């Protein structure tokens, strides 16, 4: 069973690109080991890819991003076994701030902008690890992507609308000049028009050479931009495949709408867990 899971079949074009992030057989637990949150997760993000993480609430998506960004400890969680490698080096016990310096940035669930700080100070905080000149350059890039942030730069971030706060959260993460951007539900509670806007920006960021690992509830939005997707269910990776494969998969629809589809399309390389 375990051996089977360790050898995930890769789609051929994926193997050619080099691995940026590689999660191997990762298990995570909270509260001193009493609550298991992830079990034997295998996941790769290759350079230049957008990878989507799908699955219902409580499946462990946010926990996985916390593990990659090193923020587990703040929530009483810890890696029990397995490893997370970034640029072929094991991250081990690297601190969250150390990971940011290595190029892994995260935009947390629920936006989490610094509500008391002005928009500009939020972005400054984002550029904390950067040199002055690099921060200035990143700032130019961010306000080009999100012109609204430049217009409202002296406003306290708490006074921005939900969509603007989300843009600020993503912009703040971009200030760190990431090579790998982790996005936890960037469309949470946003109107469809703004969701599309954010989606376009994710594509643009990706075009600038930044790989993206994305949690998204809206399967359509996620798969429309992702190269590859993983479906988490009850702490495990239940399916994975390219976006095209996923779109043709009926079990996904079952999961999200409760509509059992007739056996049509290709079956994915599914791990036999059920």
């Amino acid at each position, binding site marked *: 069973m375990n051996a089977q899971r360790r050898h995930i079949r890769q789609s051929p074009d994926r193997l050619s690109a080099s691995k940026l992030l590689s999660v191997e057989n990762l298990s995570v637990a909270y509260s001193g080991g009493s609550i298991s949150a992830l079990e034997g997760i295998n996941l790769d993000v290759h350079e230049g890819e957008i990878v989507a993480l799908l699955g219902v609430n409580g499946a462990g998506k946010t926990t996985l991003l916390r593990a990659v960004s090193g923020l587990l400890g703040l929530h009483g969680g810890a890696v029990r076994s397995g490893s997370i490698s970034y640029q072929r080096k094991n991250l081990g016990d690297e601190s969250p701030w150390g990971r940011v310096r290595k190029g892994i940035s995260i935009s947390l669930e629920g936006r989490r902008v610094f509500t008391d700080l002005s928009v500009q100070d939020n972005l400054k905080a984002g550029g904390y690890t950067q040199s002055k000149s690099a921060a200035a350059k990143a700032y130019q890039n961010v306000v080009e992507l999100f012109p609204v942030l430049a217009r409202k730069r002296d406003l306290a971030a708490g006074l921005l609308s939900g969509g603007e706060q989300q843009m600020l959260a993503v912009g703040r993460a971009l200030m760190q000049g990431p090579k790998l951007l982790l996005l936890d539900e960037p469309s949470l509670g946003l109107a469809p028009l703004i969701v599309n806007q954010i989606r376009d920006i994710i594509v643009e960021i990706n075009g600038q050479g930044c790989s993206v690992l994305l949690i998204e509830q809206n399967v*359509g939005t996620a798969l429309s931009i992702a190269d590859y997707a993983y479906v988490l269910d009850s702490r495990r990776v239940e399916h994975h495949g390219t976006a095209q494969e996923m779109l043709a998969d009926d079990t996904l629809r079952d999961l999200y709408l409760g509509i059992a589809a007739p056996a049509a399309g290709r079956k994915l390389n599914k791990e036999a867990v059920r």
Partner: protein
Amino acid sequence: MLNVESLRLEFGGVVALKDVDFSVEMGELFAILGPNGAGKTSLFNCLSGLVKPKGSIQVNGNEVIGKKPHEIADMGIARTFQNLGLFGSMTVAENILVGSHLQIQGGAFTAAIRWPSVFRSERQARRNADELMELMNLLEVRDSVVDTLPYGIRKRVEIAKAVASKPSLLLLDEPVAGMNHEETETFVEYVLELKKQLGLTIVLIEHDVAMVMRIADRILALDFGEVIGLGTPAEIQQNERVIAAYLGATDESDAQTELLMEGAISE
């Protein structure tokens, strides 16, 4: 028995619930569906008195808005929480006894001097709690401290705690989040059994659409704090706004989304 009219809730300019209307019949299993951030938990917080919305919520003809949470509990409304509303350092039995707080007599002074009627009521409550634990198959973890138990069992303890107050209306907030399929199945069996035996009316927030479609009598779908659908599972499955909320915005320009939509509609 539950009647919600033009319910509106704002947090500092952000509208969490926008003119929500619905009613739940006695004995119904009523589900509330919607993506994260749609306002489902806000709705529950209105129902249990944790926030003060505008509009009207009536339970058996009594207004809920403006009452304190413990007064609302006294009206026969019990609820569970998304992230477990258990008392971690207490045992399973003690948690259930806290749940049956309203059924027990006695205060600080009468307890301190061992007033007999207090301890009679206490013994009765312990007997009832044991019976409830037996029904929920919890007797074997009766004296275990809740924090040490696995997640699935804790979820069950929370339901038992809520039911211990002998409510007429039970609100369940994402009860199967984080459970695997086997655990979910078991859990649903427990809930349905309880509903049957105690004659409960249940309102359920759930993200697991498949499960909801299977067990709910009627479904209310929310998005951005607005009602986007209300009806039987079959009706909701056909509702395009609901499909869009879960499977993607109806963005015609996007070929991949179209592909998916075709798949979903061709059912």
